[in-house]
């Protein structure tokens, strides 16, 4: 049976954060109900087309999945279980925003088979949270964690951001200290990207907010990683750390170029050399399903050359690096024959190192990974 990761998208948020450029809307009850119906239909349709896939990981992301009713989540999970073969030790994650979770919700999540929670903490500084348009405060983060533990979640991620408006290294380290008290299994740490057409971008351009310099931002990154590693976390990807054995299996699937199906508005799927994505507008999404079609907006056929490049581009993001042996087995090519020059050049400039048959980004390489990655492109 073919294996795949499954991504489910819930496009609703109570409010858009100031830095966010994803499609998400507050949504009313009618729209949420309707979306649920169509999502269920899409799951049924996809399973009838793809046959019985073995699902090893599920990731319910958004938006904010925790803003829709817990019964909807339960129904979605039941449908998945009915339509696909959900592995008995599958990793099933749901994204949660502090301030949107109740004890009942958390219990029903657990009963539905969800065993991992990913909490959008972003910062433990109320001032900064307000500045970037988050709906919650520090106390609500603590409450959310309490609820999750109470409901029996034993694998919890916290998303953190750095390089935030008016944030200093000291501010970020305080957030990290406070985060330690939450006793998480996993931490994702993202440098903020000012995306065009976001409120924050607009403010920044008008000189209303100041952003940390590139040097300050990199300081936060490296100091943050060092701090977390001193606290028993292990970095396993550019932006991800976990306690031993708690790496996110779903995300590892992406970086190892394994198959995944994305269902719901604007989700992406990738099966072998074919990648496609769903409509990002509700009406297109609904109409396609009404017509009995998968709500696919576009697709891309990835040539073998590109597939190989993507394998390297994604793989090098992992701290363990790229295994030359795995590569050669998968692509039947001599790695050094093809990339020897590139590897030596970047080794000389200190971006990568070659250790035990693996190519790994150095500390500097983690800052400048694009410089290495472009050389993997055909």
């Amino acid at each position, binding site marked *: 049976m073919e294996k795949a*990761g499954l*991504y489910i998208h819930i496009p609703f948020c109570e409010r858009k954060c100031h830095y966010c450029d994803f499609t998400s809307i507050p949504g009313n009850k009618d729209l949420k109900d309707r979306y649920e119906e169509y999502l269920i239909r899409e799951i049924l349709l996809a399973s009838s087309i793809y046959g019985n896939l073995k699902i090893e990981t599920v990731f319910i992301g958004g938006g904010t999945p925790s803003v829709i009713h817990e019964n909807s989540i339960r129904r979605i999970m039941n449908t998945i279980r009915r339509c696909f073969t959900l592995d008995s030790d599958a990793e099933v994650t749901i994204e949660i925003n502090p301030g949107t979770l109740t004890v009942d919700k958390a219990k029903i999540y657990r009963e539905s088979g969800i065993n991992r929670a990913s909490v959008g903490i972003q910062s433990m500084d109320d001032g900064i949270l307000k500045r970037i348009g988050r709906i919650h405060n520090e106390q609500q983060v603590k409450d959310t964690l309490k609820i999750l533990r109470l409901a029996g979640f034993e694998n919890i991620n916290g998303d953190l951001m750095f390089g935030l408006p008016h944030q200093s290294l000291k501010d970020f380290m305080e957030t990290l200290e406070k985060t330690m008290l939450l006793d998480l299994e996993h931490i994702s740490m*993202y*440098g903020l*990207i000012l995306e065009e057409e976001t409120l924050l971008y607009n403010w920044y351009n008008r000189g209303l907010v100041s952003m940390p310099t*590139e*040097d300050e*931002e*990199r300081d936060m990154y490296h100091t943050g990683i060092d701090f977390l590693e001193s606290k028993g976390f292990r970095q396993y990807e*550019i*932006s991800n750390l976990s306690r031993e054995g708690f790496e996110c299996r779903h*995300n590892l699937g*992406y*970086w190892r170029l394994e198959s*995944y199906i*994305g269902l719901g508005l*604007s*989700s*992406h*799927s*990738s099966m072998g050399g074919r*990648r496609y*994505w769903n409509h990002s507008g509700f009406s297109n999404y609904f109409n396609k399903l009404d017509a009995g079609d998968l709500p696919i907006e576009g697709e*891309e056929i990835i040539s073998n050359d*590109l597939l190989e*490049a*993507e394998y390297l*581009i*994604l793989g090098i*993001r992992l701290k363990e690096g790229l295994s030359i042996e795995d590569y050669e087995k998968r692509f039947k090519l001599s790695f050094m024959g093809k990339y020897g020059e590139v590897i030596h050049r970047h080794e000389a*400039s200190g*971006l990568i190192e070659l250790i035990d048959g693996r190519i790994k980004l150095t500390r500097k390489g*983690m*800052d*400048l*990974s*694009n*410089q290495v*990655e*472009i*050389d993997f*492109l055909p």
Partner: protein
Amino acid sequence: MHIKQENIRNFSIIAHIDHGKSTLADRLIEMTGMLTSREMQEQVLDKMDLERERGITIKLKAVRLVYKARDGQEYVFNLIDTPGHVDFNYEVSRSLAACEGAVLVVDATQGVEAQTLANVYLAIDQDLEILPVINKIDLPSARPEEIKDEIEDIIGIESHDAPLISAKDGLNVEQVLEEIVKKVPAPKGDPKAPLKALIFDSYYDSYKGVTCYIRVFEGQVKPGMMVKMMATGKSFEVTEVGVNTSKHIPLDSLSAGEVGYLTASIKNVKEARVGDTITDTKHPTAEPLPGYKKVIPMVYCGIYPAEGEDFNTVRDALEKLQVNDAALVFEPETSVALGFGFRCGFLGLLHMEIIQERLEREFDLNIITTAPSVIYRVTKTSGEVMEIQNPSNLPVPAEIDFMEEPIVSANIMTPTEYVGAIMELCQNKRGTFKNMEYLEETRVVLHYDLPLNEVIYDFFDALKSKTRGYASFDYELKGYKQSELVKMDILINSELVDAFSLIVHEDKAYERGRTIAERLVDVIPRHQFAVPIQAAIGSKIIARETIRALRKDVLAKCYGGDISRKRKLLEKQKEGKKRMRQIGSVEVPQEAFLTVLKYDEK
């Protein structure tokens, strides 16, 4: 259709850019009925798209119109178009030489401009009858009476009878046609005498070879005849003669007084130069027509194939352009930074820009252009005199006794309110004030001597910016003047980049060096290491800037939905890198070579 000489009128239209020359030409063509409205393309005379975009006419053409006048007779009008820019002064003078009259179009709101003046004087030099016409009379801000006074005062030609027209609406354009019949003299010249014809334009096409636009002054020319170009000495057999209406119409012959075209299997416009006299090989005329000049380039620059572009493709394109443009010269040269390319000579800055744009648009080439240079005269201590247009060829300072640079005399016509700003600009450009003439209470002409090397740097842009486009400007080469010039080099990561080297006045070097270094910091992407940019005279560093090392080039988030987007971003980044020039370990984008020239608003 043979016409009596007394029913022929040969004339040009002279106007400043935007004063409505092309629109008037359109109306004349329309109203003489040679073309139906359907055939009328906007602005028939301007052939190249580029010209149309800029609203200027670069290559001239002649059109033959038939007009039935109020006196009941049919007249043949040969309307000869002229380019409107100082770069093409010589070509203008030759096309005017083919005429007996000129219609001077002056905008009823703007009045006389410097460029118009330059062309009017050329027309007066040719003894042409000048018919002033006031255009854009329909605009609310039109002030025809004042403009008439201006024409009389400034140019000194009678203008109170000048037709007041709106070329756009066709208002009073018929009056212009009648004035041409009445006032422009008919051509003279003996059709029985040996052939004497003036080439006032030529262009190449791959079917017929070179087509010459000619004005026959004496004798006759017909197919089968052997003709000789008196300046180049080459003979050709005439294959076709005719006139141009909306298309070429072949005729049996062209006689004294007529204007038309001639083809003779000529392969290159160099063999049929503008201004040359065509005569009968067997019965040559005694004297060629006066005024022939071999055009000399005033401005030089390097043109190099950009990354991924082939040297030979660029050479082929330049050769093709040269077939049509006798003023373009080029020869191969090598730059350490840019590899193999060409040193090209142009009539002026506009001519240079036109060639660059044609290479890019018509030939779809990706090229790098180096900063323009003029010809410097270098007298070495040995007494030897060299002409240098590529800064890299300048001898070492110890071998130089002194240097001279070309000086132009410039006329700047401006509303009085900008006089201060212009004087400051000219001062800044090492100009020498000659005098200032009041044209009227609110307008003056400033006469300056300016070093050409300052003019070609950013003078036009600066003038435009400082006068909000109200000043007009023309210049002509005056001569050479001794000057304290130095070669300034730019070093990127301690490596000298010859393509950036410039010859500048000693007093300007520091400022120019700093500006260039600052701009390079902006356009050169950051590298994994810090990159110093230095400006130097010899071994002395006069300016220094640093491109900070790149600290961050990483995508923080990369999950399922990000992969395609991320790959595309990387592809774009790689594409950008490909278009860069590798100079040592530094990648320099092509636009860096252009930014050196840009006008600085500061």
